[in-house]
């Protein structure tokens, strides 16, 4: 009987696959910035984004045995981050702080980071205004539309990968993305017309 137990334990040990998440420090060093950026732009709060980033890597390490290598490490991590984001945005505290408007990342933050390679003062101001307007439109998008928009245009993830991350069929992802882009285009055109009138 003890021999059988030992054999089963040995079999279990041999079945444990080596995953990239075994070296979680290396994975963290490579992908932490990317995951933090996505979460920060989604929740607009630095502390919450940092906490969710840590939870993402902790969950990735805990669930490392279920990583089969069907997708990339970045996709797997983003999948966990999106799920954590969903459960976080469902909470009442998040809604309260969203109503209050205590956000760490806003249009002014982005405007201050705007690159201005050899732009005139006027074109810099126009660029800042356009950036502010487009960011306001992004903030008004629905949760899935905003997440898909950020994943596509900020993180530059392919539609098939976004479908895996969001656990949605590709046509649904496309539908959300094109609706988001409709809003962005409409806002952008309205802003251009307003500037043309001045």
């Amino acid at each position, binding site marked *: 009987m003890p021999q059988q137990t030992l054999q089963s334990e040995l079999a279990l040990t041999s079945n444990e696959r080596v995953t990239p998440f075994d070296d979680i420090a290396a994975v963290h060093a490579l992908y932490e910035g990317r995951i933090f950026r996505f979460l920060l732009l989604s929740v607009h709060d*630095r502390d919450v*984004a940092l906490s969710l980033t840590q939870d993402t890597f902790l969950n990735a390490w805990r669930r490392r045995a279920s990583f089969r290598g069907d997708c990339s490490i970045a996709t797997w991590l983003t999948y966990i981050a999106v799920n954590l984001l969903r459960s976080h945005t469902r909470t009442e505290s998040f809604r309260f702080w969203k109503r209050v408007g205590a956000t760490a990342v806003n249009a002014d933050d982005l405007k201050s980071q*705007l*690159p201005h390679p050899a732009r005139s003062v006027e074109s810099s101001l126009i660029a800042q205004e*356009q*950036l502010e307007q*487009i960011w306001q439109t992004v903030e008004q998008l629905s949760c899935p539309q905003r997440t898909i928009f950020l994943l596509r245009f900020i993180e530059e993830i392919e539609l098939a990968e976004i479908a895996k991350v969001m656990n949605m069929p590709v046509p649904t992802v496309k539908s959300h993305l094109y609706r988001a882009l409709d809003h*962005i285009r409409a806002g952008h055109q309205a802003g251009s017309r307003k500037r043309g009138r001045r």
Partner: protein
Amino acid sequence: MNNDHLTSEQIEGLLSDPESRDRSQHLNVCQACSAEFESLLVVMGDLRSAAIASAEQHRRVAVMPAPSHRTPRVMWSLLMAAALICIAGPLAVRQRPARIIAVDAPKQQLQGAVSDEQLLSNIEDDLSSPLPRPMLPLAGSVASTDPTASTYRSKENE
């Protein structure tokens, strides 16, 4: 969107692969779509670079606190150290005589021990002597009563 112009799907395809704009016949023909696409391309590029830079700045602040927060802590710790020295210094100076007394204590104990031994020897002398000490004649009178001393003195007188 107007059917005569590019749809969001087409715009998305062009934004994802800006090199394909040369292959788009509509962009070559339609001035409005071309202007919109060029403008959107610039704005999306700005948005991406600004978002990356902003997130990186926030990450640095979140992971590593600003050094300006450290200066007051150092100041406070220095002030606390100075206050401790001010309080502990006089106390240490006051406690010095007490140490001297503690060093002198064994000498007194030794003196006490010597006197005890002397007392014991006196008691033993008392016990060995036929008469108790208080009953013995005084030293001067003993000298005057000594018979040998008186004879010696009388011989000298002679």
